[in-house]
């Protein structure tokens, strides 16, 4: 592409960002209501963000982070372990795969009421949802990776008389691109689970912050929650990609994107 064309496309991109901000301002003017601020302007939302940052936002963010991180770690580790077992042993494949296939049709988010009945309104009612979300995604991807390992690699590790943990390493590393895909996808999906679980049963957390905002008709507070969640999701994805590139530089897809 030529220089001027690229520059004009950059102008279009800039116009797009301006359009988003301008649209927000215009909408907040048009939809202004005297009593309730149902569509706050960007600076109103930013002000509310600063106010909340001084009071409860930090605590809520930390609570959500803990739920997401704990649930994701447990779910991912379980998922990788189950995936390796299902991928390597025919009996496990026969018995466990159908169960997972069935449970996958019931979305993890539909478990929220049951999780509340089982675990109450504490940490685990939210974390267990994240565990389910991560578990199913990671299992499927791990099995996919493990069953796609080349026979030569397996045979080579057998003929070298590797110990079982070394053979495990071979299998794990061969399946790693698929496993990472599942991990990244479930990391993104976890935030959705966190917010919906906290909306239904939350005292602390960003979902609870939004839910209190909704009850008080404080739209600015809801918007702050939305933006913080978006930022967390973006940062988590970015950090994951960085870590993945640092730890596994040999994976082909790491080189380009």
């Amino acid at each position, binding site marked *: 592409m030529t220089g001027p064309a690229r520059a004009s496309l950059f102008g279009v991109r800039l116009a797009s960002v301006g359009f988003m901000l301008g649209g927000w301002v215009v909408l907040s003017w048009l939809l202004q209501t005297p009593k309730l601020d149902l569509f706050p302007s960007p600076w109103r939302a930013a002000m509310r963000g600063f106010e909340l940052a001084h009071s409860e936002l930090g605590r809520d963010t930390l609570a959500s982070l803990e739920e997401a991180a704990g649930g994701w770690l447990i779910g991912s580790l379980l998922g990788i372990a189950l995936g390796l077992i299902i991928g390597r042993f025919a009996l496990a494949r026969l018995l466990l795969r159908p169960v997972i296939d069935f449970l996958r049709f019931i979305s993890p988010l539909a478990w929220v009421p049951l999780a509340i009945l089982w675990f109450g309104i504490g940490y685990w009612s939210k974390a267990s949802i994240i565990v389910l979300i991560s578990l199913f995604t990671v299992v499927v991807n791990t099995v996919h990776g493990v069953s796609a390992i080349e026979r030569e690699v397996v045979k080579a590790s057998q003929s070298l008389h590797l110990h079982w943990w070394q053979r495990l390493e071979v299998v794990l590393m061969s399946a790693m691109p698929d496993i990472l895909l599942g991990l990244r996808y479930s990391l993104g999906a976890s935030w959705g689970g966190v917010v919906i679980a906290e909306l239904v049963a939350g005292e602390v957390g960003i979902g609870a912050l939004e839910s209190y905002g909704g009850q008080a008709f404080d739209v600015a507070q809801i918007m702050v929650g*939305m933006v913080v969640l978006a930022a967390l999701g973006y940062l988590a994805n970015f950090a994951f990609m960085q870590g993945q590139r640092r730890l596994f530089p040999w994976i082909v897809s790491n080189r380009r994107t």
Partner: protein
Amino acid sequence: MKYRLRSLLPSVGGSASAILGFIILLAVWWTITALFQVRAVILPTPPAVWHALMMMAADGSLRQDIATSLVELFWGFGIGTMAGLVCGGAMAQWRWVDAFLEPVIETFRFILPFSLVPLVVVWFGVSLTGKIFVVAYACYFVVVINTAAALRDVDPYILKAAAMLGVTGWRRMLGVVFPAALPRILTGLQVALAYAWVSVIAAEYIGSMAGLGYLITNAQSGLDTAQVIAGMVVIGAIGLIFSQIVMLVRRLTVPYASGSSW
């Protein structure tokens, strides 16, 4: 999250296997409740859940909840995917549309549909509009990204071959580009349908008076675990029916790119 997205979706062989899984799970569940005398609030017996399901079916409330959820799904999915297909097509066709929409999509992609739920409750109350908004929002991004990428990433050799045969204009669009891009567009729609069904349920948790999501949260606040599980089974069964329909559509329209399993 690119071509491998499809491996996350249930497949044809998956549903046969899911029925077997249901039987295994049922056996384990029944054994646990029979052996350990679990309290019904924690885990009711399978007959109790069946009874709850039949009760809801008999008094007509189940039918109404299913109808409400399906109406929300229909409009939300319809509006979201339509907007996604149109925008995706335009993005692939014109560079300036792509340059304009890409920052918007990249920004809003990270704003989760579920974090919109309290907002739409404030804006639209308990009406259907709010739920449809959330569902359409959830569908839009996956459709627009996949449609634009599918139309853009058509194998250049196919396009060269078409150019060599003198196919241009609309015939090139409909006869060459579209069939080549269709599998991935359908994948986007398939994922969008799964998202849509989940977000229907999730949107109904807060500020609604009917629907399957309302059914299970309502039963939960009444400590009626049997009804919660019955509702979950209905949600899963409807999801299963949808995935079967989608698989059928896929096999009918793109027999050259079907079948996936894990």
